[in-house]
C-alpha cells in the first residue's frame, strides 16, 4: 500500500512538474473566471505561479510548507482587503484541482495510479483551501476591528466654545461603548480645562431611545458630581416627541433646541454678556439725550 502510495505521489509530482505551464495557464483561467476582470490577470498569474512553485517544493520537502502557508495567507489577505467573497477567494486555490483533473482526464484515461495520485493531491489542496479560508476570515476580522477602533476615535471631539465652556457634538448612533468613551473624554476635558459648562449636542444622533437617554443622563450626573453643569442641545422635534412618548424624565437637566441657544445660556450663566453692536437709531438717541 505504502509503495503504491509512494509511486502515485511520485507520479503526480512528475505530472505537475512536467506540465507546469499548461496547468498554470488553466489554473489562472479558472481563478479569474468568477472575478470578472476585477483583478489584473498578470498579477494573479504572478501570485499563483509563486504558489505553484512553492507547492511543488513542499511536496518533496515538508520544510517548504510554512512558506506555502505564508503565501496563501498573503493571497487571502489581499483578496479580503479588495472586497472579494470567501468563495471567490477559495476558488483561487481549488482551481488547481480542476486544472490537474482536466489534465489527467485528457492524458491518461482510467489510469488507476494517476487517479490515486490525484486523490492524494486533492487532499493536500483541501487542507490548503481550508487554511486560505481561515486566513481570509482572520483578515476580515482584523479589518472590522480596525474600523471599529477608528470609528471610536472619530466620534469624540470635545470642542472648546468659550473660556469655561466646552461642547461635544455627538454624531451617529450612541451605544454603551461609545457613550463610555464620550463620557470619559468629556469629563477629562472638564478637569483639564477647568470648564464649568459642558454642552452635549445631539443634533447628529438619529434616534433617542430609553437606552441612549439613560447614557446621556449618566453623563450629566457624572459631570455634576465633578462640579460642572451640563446642557443638552440639538433636540429635534421628532426626538422631543419620542422622548415624551417614551416617558423619559430628563428631570432638571437644561435642554435647548440648538447649540446656539445652549451657548447663549452658558455664556449668560457664566456671567458673560453678549452685546449687539449694531444699535438702533432709537437707542442712540436715547443715549444722547
Amino acid at each position, binding site marked *: 500500500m505504502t509503495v503504491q502510495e509512494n509511486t502515485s505521489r511520485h507520479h503526480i509530482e512528475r505530472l505537475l512538474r512536467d506540465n507546469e505551464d499548461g496547468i498554470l495557464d488553466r489554473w489562472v483561467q479558472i481563478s479569474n473566471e468568477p472575478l470578472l476582470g476585477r483583478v489584473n490577470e498578470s498579477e494573479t498569474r504572478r501570485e499563483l505561479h509563486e504558489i505553484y512553485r512553492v507547492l511543488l517544493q513542499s511536496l518533496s520537502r515538508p520544510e517548504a510548507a510554512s512558506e506555502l502557508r505564508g503565501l496563501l495567507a498573503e493571497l487571502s489577505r489581499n483578496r479580503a482587503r479588495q472586497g472579494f467573497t470567501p468563495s471567490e477567494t477559495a476558488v483561487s486555490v481549488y482551481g488547481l484541482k480542476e486544472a490537474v483533473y482536466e489534465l489527467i482526464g485528457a492524458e491518461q484515461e482510467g489510469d488507476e495510479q494517476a487517479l490515486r495520485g490525484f486523490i492524494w493531491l486533492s487532499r493536500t489542496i483541501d487542507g490548503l483551501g481550508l487554511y486560505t479560508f481561515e486566513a481570509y476570515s482572520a483578515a476580515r476580522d482584523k479589518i472590522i476591528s480596525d474600523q471599529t477602533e477608528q470609528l471610536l476615535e472619530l466620534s469624540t471631539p470635545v470642542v472648546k466654545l468659550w473660556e469655561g465652556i466646552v461642547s461635544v457634538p455627538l454624531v451617529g448612533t450612541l451605544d454603551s461603548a461609545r457613550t463610555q468613551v464620550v*463620557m*470619559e473624554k468629556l*469629563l*477629562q476635558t*472638564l*478637569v483639564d480645562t*477647568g*470648564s*464649568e459648562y459642558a454642552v452635549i449636542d445631539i443634533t447628529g444622533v438619529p434616534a433617542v431611545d430609553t437606552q441612549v437617554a439613560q447614557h446621556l443622563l*449618566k453623563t450629566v*450626573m*457624572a*459631570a*455634576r*458630581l*465633578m*462640579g*460642572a*453643569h*451640563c446642557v443638552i442641545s440639538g433636540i429635534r422635534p421628532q426626538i422631543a416627541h419620542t422622548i415624551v412618548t417614551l416617558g423619559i424624565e430628563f428631570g*432638571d*437637566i*437644561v435642554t435647548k433646541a440648538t447649540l446656539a441657544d445652549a451657548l447663549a445660556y452658558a455664556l449668560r*450663566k*457664566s*456671567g458673560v454678556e453678549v452685546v449687539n453692536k449694531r444699535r438702533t437709531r432709537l437707542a442712540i438717541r436715547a443715549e444722547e439725550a
Partner: protein
Amino acid sequence: MDRVPILKISDILLVSIQGDLDDHAVLTLQEDLADRVVATGALGVIIDITAVEIVDSFVGRMLSTIAGMARMLDAETIVVGMRPAVAITLVELGLSLGGLRTALDLEKGIALLSRPGPEPAVTDDMSPVGQ
C-alpha cells in the same frame, strides 16, 4: 492612614483626602469633622478628593453623611476635585449624592462658598448660585 488632617482657613474647614480610605478612617473622619465644626463654628466644609482614585458605595455615602451632618450644624459642604473615573463609578453605583454641592477644583470651591447660595447645585436647575 490613621487620621485625615482637618485644616481651618478663616471660617472654612478644609479636608484633603490623600489616597484611598478604609472604612475605619471614614468613620473617624466623620466624627472628627463634626467635632471641629462645632468647636470652630465653621460656615463651610470643603472636601478635596483630588487624590482619591477608587471609591466604593461606603465612601460615597460618607460624603452624603458629612454633608448632612454639616448642614445640621449650619455649615455648607462642597466636594471638590472629583476625578472622572470616580464620578463615573458613583453614577454607575446609583449614588447621585443629592444635596451635595460640587466644584471642579479647590479654587472654584472656595469661590462657590463665598457666594451666598440657598440651595445645593446638584438638585437645583444648575444655575450657579448668586446670579
